[in-house]
């Protein structure tokens, strides 16, 4: 009996709909059809009047969610792909994210973004937008990497009074399986040491956590012990755990699937330099996707994002500095 990452998301929404009458789901094709990825399969039948098909209007979907939140509801809006959330960008960053600061009333909406690439998904079905949303004050940005986190963090995210951008990774949907959804249930804002080590630290999030672990396994054969930190949430960022790890190892590589300019990996490196400069025995490094749109062809795609091979290579350079 195993649970996939997408099962966990579906189960979390089921639990939320059952336990909290304020929750409703709004998204394209999510009602009878159950969603483009079946993340809401069966929920419309199970909970009549709580799961709705939206018109193709990302701006209005979020605007409407903000209004519903003002009047006491907790909407979960599913964007069919993270890439399409750019059409809702104004409502997310200017309406939802500023509302508490400006009016004192928080907006408890959750926006689910199917993020990241799969072979052949192409430039507009592969984007990782966590860095863009993390830039704006007033948003919580979550990036679960495990089946258990996908379940618990969605539930914890909906319980927050602030707007949550929930970046779920499409590659992990069906590829990542677990025996159960019950993991260690850490609170939002805490990172997890997913693999202990002593020679170097890799900080990663979402699908890249798994690539980093595979790279670490390979380097283990050469006697290197690589520590892997799963950020879990990009904002708030758990700098304490990252610094503790760098204190142990002295070497840092931050890995992310997003585009290389700025973003999560740059934020990690810059904060470690600011507050943990004396812990570094080598210049801290970052590894991201290439500075081009995500290519369609699987061979190109495989070379566009970090892989266990490219992570190993970056680590070897770091380890021999």
């Amino acid at each position, binding site marked *: 009996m195993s649970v996939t990452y997408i099962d966990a998301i579906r189960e979390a929404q089921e639990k939320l709909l059952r336990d909290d009458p304020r929750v*409703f789901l709004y998204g394209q094709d999510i009602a009878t059809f159950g969603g483009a990825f079946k993340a809401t399969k069966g929920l419309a039948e199970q909970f009549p009047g709580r799961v709705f098909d939206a018109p193709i209007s990302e701006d209005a979907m979020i605007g409407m*969610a903000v*209004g*519903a939140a003002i009047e*006491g509801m907790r909407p979960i809006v599913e964007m069919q792909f993270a890439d399409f959330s750019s059409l809702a960008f104004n409502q997310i960053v200017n*309406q939802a994210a500023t*509302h508490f600061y400006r*009016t004192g009333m928080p907006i408890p909406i959750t926006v689910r973004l199917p993020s990241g690439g799969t072979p052949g998904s192409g430039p507009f079905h592969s984007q990782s937008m966590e860095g863009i949303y993390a830039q704006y004050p007033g948003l919580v940005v979550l990036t679960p990497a495990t089946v258990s986190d996908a379940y618990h963090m969605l539930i914890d995210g909906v319980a927050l009074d602030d707007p949550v951008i929930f970046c779920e990774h499409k590659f992990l949907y069906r590829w990542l399986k677990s025996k159960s959804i019950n993991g260690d249930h850490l609170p939002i804002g805490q990172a997890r040491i997913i693999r202990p080590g002593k020679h170097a630290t890799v900080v990663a999030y979402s699908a890249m956590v798994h690539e980093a672990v595979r790279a670490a396994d390979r380097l283990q054969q050469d006697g290197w012990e690589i520590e892997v930190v799963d950020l879990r949430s990009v904002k708030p960022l758990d700098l*304490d755990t990252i610094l503790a790890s760098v204190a142990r190892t002295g070497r840092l590589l931050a890995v992310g699937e997003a585009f290389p300019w700025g973003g999560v990996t740059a934020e990690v490196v810059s904060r470690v330099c600011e507050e943990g400069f004396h812990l570094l025995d080598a210049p801290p490094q970052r590894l991201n996707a290439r500075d081009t749109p995500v290519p369609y062809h699987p061979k190109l795609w495989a070379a566009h994002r970090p892989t266990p091979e490219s992570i190993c290579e970056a680590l070897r350079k770091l380890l021999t500095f």
Partner: protein
Amino acid sequence: MDMQPFADGVVMNRDFLRSVFHSMLKARILENKLSSLYKAGKIVGGVYLGRGQEAVSATLGTALIQGTDFFAPLIRDQAGRTAFGEPLIDCTRTYLGSAQGPMRGRDGNIHRGRPQMGMPAMISHLGAQVPVVAGMLFAKRLQGTLQGRVGATCIGDGATSTGAFHEGLNLASVERLPMVVIVGNNQFAYSTPNHRQFACADLVEKARGYGVGGFSVDGTDLLACASVIGEAVRRAREGGGPQLVVARLLRLSGHGEHDDGSYVPAEIKSGHYGRDCIEVAMRQLVEHGIATVDEIFAWQDQFAEEVQRAVAQAQQEDPPDPYQENWTALSTRFSTPQPCAVQ
């Protein structure tokens, strides 16, 4: 304001009209004062007035029921805000930078609102409030208390070009929500005339495209506004779905007080729709015996006093203190420390 425009379905409710006119007059006096304050250098940032749109805005605000209905005012809705119940001091405090204003200095001028009161605070992106009002109504439907409620917002002719307006009205229509969207076609979006803004012959034609009720009204005519807008609100309230009202009038000020509107042609200014709705209203009220000239002058003095007091009080209050500010945009306190560029 628990007032119905129609006393018995046909005849105009006298008290309703007097109430609307109060809000129109008060708003005009207040905004004239704001303009003065701006030109005396007392206001930082932009000042955008609703001169010329008072009849439309105040009628809507009076027809809506505070505590039941939702009203998302936009740029030129001072009269509507006053009618809906926003205290004058909220306006003067926000413009004059008092820390006690509803936005506490974190946003200014017409971006103020009280979402807890059913009056959300607008953002600068035009059209964005349309889906927000729809969402507020949607929540009420899920909570089982939508019956008898209306949600309304006003926008300009320019905002009808935005994607947000299109998506929002479409969604409200698909969901059959009791919304009223009033388009104040004041013929200029900043300096852009109608023929550079839309290509249909009349904006009200869009109502058909969205599957919503459509109304046209002469925005300079108080009695016409009361009749048409009153009807639109009634239809929405009785389950007729969204209603689009297109009011024709002229903006009687610059786009903002930093703009002198010198691009508005003289013919338009002296044409029918260039009439001042307050002058028109005064004539109508006196003609129909709804108010006397003496009463109107008395109201002018009374409102000037009120405005003066609100200005004087706000001017003496302290501005926000950056050293006492809680510089956070999240209501949640996380256990790990949050980033701060400057401590």
